[in-house]
């Protein structure tokens, strides 16, 4: 299997969709002539023309609103919102229109739209450009949230997102774009709602998604040196959430730690912890723990930024406290 970067894996799937279905088109800020802020759509405008790879004005609400209209009219738009930070400007369109039109029309109207956005911190972009708000979108009924970790995930989940007749928020952690992994040449759909057991273990379950899976993997490697075998779960989608795989793992390890970059208070990690409590209470040998971002706006200073993000050493310390 060839090794591709996360970015190349996304590009491969996007290109296949553009080739396979003339109703598919892409829209976003600087995705055409410039090739995308993270270079995912590089060369597409030349290949598919400015009508299918459209550069938009800087207005997220308009971008998503146009996408919704196009999707209602029968097209299959993919809109790119440079980052999740700017998606807040389109929050109303996403929450009030994209997520609800199917329900409010009694299933007569669908919004088959993929909304891609970069997320995560770690590049000293300070507090307004370092959010990890995927948990907010997972909170809303009517939209699905994909959170790929590997290039393989990125390729397969993006294909599935295009199959879906309802809106999908597709999260790309900025720290992952250049990471490499094995990706098949042939197209495949990676089903939503199926987590991956990324690393097998028996002593504790580390639950991560998107970028935080990497922190879990590093923590598991450290723990292994002390004879603690951590199982690492890569959720792949937050909505639908594969609680079955989580519970199955907890049944085996009896301990769970949820890791996410987002703030702890009222966050998605709390939702997972509650589900474990509801569905696997009798399996727990310790309280479910969370390792989350610090409860502060993201600092700009490099050391402070790292201190505000979950680190493998934080996870290791929490695991030791459970055993």
């Amino acid at each position, binding site marked *: 299997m060839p090794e591709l970067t996360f970015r190349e894996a996304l590009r491969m799937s996007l290109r296949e969709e553009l080739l396979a279905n003339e109703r598919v088109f892409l829209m976003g800020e600087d995705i055409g002539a410039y090739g995308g802020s993270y270079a995912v759509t590089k060369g597409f405008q030349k290949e598919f023309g400015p009508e299918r790879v459209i550069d938009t004005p800087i207005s997220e609400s308009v971008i998503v609103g146009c996408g919704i209209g196009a999707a209602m009219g029968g097209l299959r738009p993919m809109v790119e919102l440079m980052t999740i930070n700017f998606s807040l400007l389109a929050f109303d369109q996403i929450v009030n229109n994209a997520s609800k039109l199917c329900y409010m029309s009694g299933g007569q109207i669908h919004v088959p739209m993929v909304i891609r956005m970069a997320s995560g911190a770690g590049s000293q972009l300070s507090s307004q450009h370092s959010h990890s708000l995927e948990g907010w979108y997972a909170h809303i009924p009517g939209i699905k949230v994909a959170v790929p970790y590997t290039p393989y995930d990125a390729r397969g989940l993006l294909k599935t997102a295009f199959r879906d007749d309802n809106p999908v928020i597709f999260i790309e952690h900025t720290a992952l774009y250049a990471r490499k992994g094995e990706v098949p040449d042939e197209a495949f759909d990676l089903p939503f709602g199926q987590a991956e057991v990324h690393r097998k273990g028996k002593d504790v379950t580390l639950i991560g998604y998107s970028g935080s899976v990497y922190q879990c993997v590093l923590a598991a490697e450290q723990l292994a040196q002390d004879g603690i075998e951590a199982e690492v779960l890569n959720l792949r989608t937050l909505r639908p959430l594969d609680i079955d795989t989580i519970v199955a793992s907890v049944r085996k390890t*009896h301990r769970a730690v949820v890791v996410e970059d987002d703030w702890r208070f009222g966050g998605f990690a709390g939702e997972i912890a509650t589900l474990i409590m509801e569905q696997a*209470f*009798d*399996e*727990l*040998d*310790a309280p479910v723990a969370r390792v989350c971002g610090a409860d502060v706006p993201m600092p700009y200073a490099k050391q402070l930024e790292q201190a505000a993000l979950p680190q493998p050493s934080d996870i290791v310390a929490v695991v030791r*406290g*459970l055993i």
Partner: protein
Amino acid sequence: MISEVVMPQMGADMEEGTVVRWMKHEGDAVERGEIIAEIETDKANVEIEAFDSGTFRKALANEGDTVPVGTIIAVIAAPEDDISKYGSSTEASKGEPAKTKASAGAPPAEAREKPPAAATPPAKAPPTRQQAPAPPRVDGRVRASPVARKLAEERGVDLTKIRGSGPDGRIVRRDVEAAATGGAPPKAEAHAAAPGPVTTVARSKMRQTIARRMALSKREAPHYYITVDIDMTEAERTRKELNETSGQDVRVSVNDLIVKASAIALQRHPIFNSWFVEDEVRQHTQINVCIAIALDDGLIAPAILDCANKSLLDVARAGKDLVERAKSGALKADEYSGGTFTISNLGPYGVETLVAIIQPPQTAILGVGAVQPKPVARDGEIVVAQVMKAALSADHRVTDGAQGARFLNEIQGLLEKPVALLI
């Protein structure tokens, strides 16, 4: 109105009780405050009273049944109330301990206003107490993870018998697995090495309670010890004169003098009249001095209530009554769980020194030996004095040695110049 009568908790370490006798039977009218049953705990027999008036509709426990604290044992209601949900005596249902409506000696009004108070020592106990000390970790509640509990049930392991190796002493899965597969092999080897034949002595409930409480005290309360010689010459003279001339029906013992002296000293050093509960120091204003009483099958230390407001003769009377009732098992709940300080006196056995273990949740105990003639130096002369050794054991989490020394000096001074005890 339906009023549930539940097995009351007579002290923080009580887990179950036995219904000895029902004083009321189905259909009987019950007045609020009336005694409805006698129950037996691991320490004594106590009577429980109704907290509401009505008709005694149903007994949910038979005489002789032992049920966990908090179990509904009877229902008092109006004749027309539907009580079908309560089933029968064979299926006594576990109620919430917090709903406890009956508790011997607890004033009903207070129990209702502060439901948790009824779950633990009687609401009559020292008034400074803001909330009931029914603390999860002090009352012997087992701390175990959910999977450990499930596994223990599946494999028939008694969680109260094993030690937790998890964080904060939590019993975790590996502890139950070890116990289920025979557990603690080193211990078994130690037994194997015992010299000669061994018989296992059955432990009474009281022995088990003493074991649990004393181990808890030694494990959690860091004791410090201070000893003094108290010259009891004056105290003995005063006591003799009082007993010859008081014309009362009660004789004052050495122990009564020590109780009274301690009560006065506690008023002046109230920090020693505290409980240490849930990481809080709860100082009481009422002084309830416990006296340790040896019984055939163990030991009990009930309290003489409100010693500060009792004269020496009242203390003597109350002490005598308490000893008699302790031996016949007729103590009231607040007498054995409302104590705030304890005196253990092995003087009658002729011992010189007794260094005692604090009774949790109290924070100090005074151990005293016999009053014996000893040569002492007084004004440069060696004279014979009546000397008693007293040892204070106190909880270092609450007080320090210098405070303990001042408190013990106070007791010493009161006994050496005993006039103040007569006021």
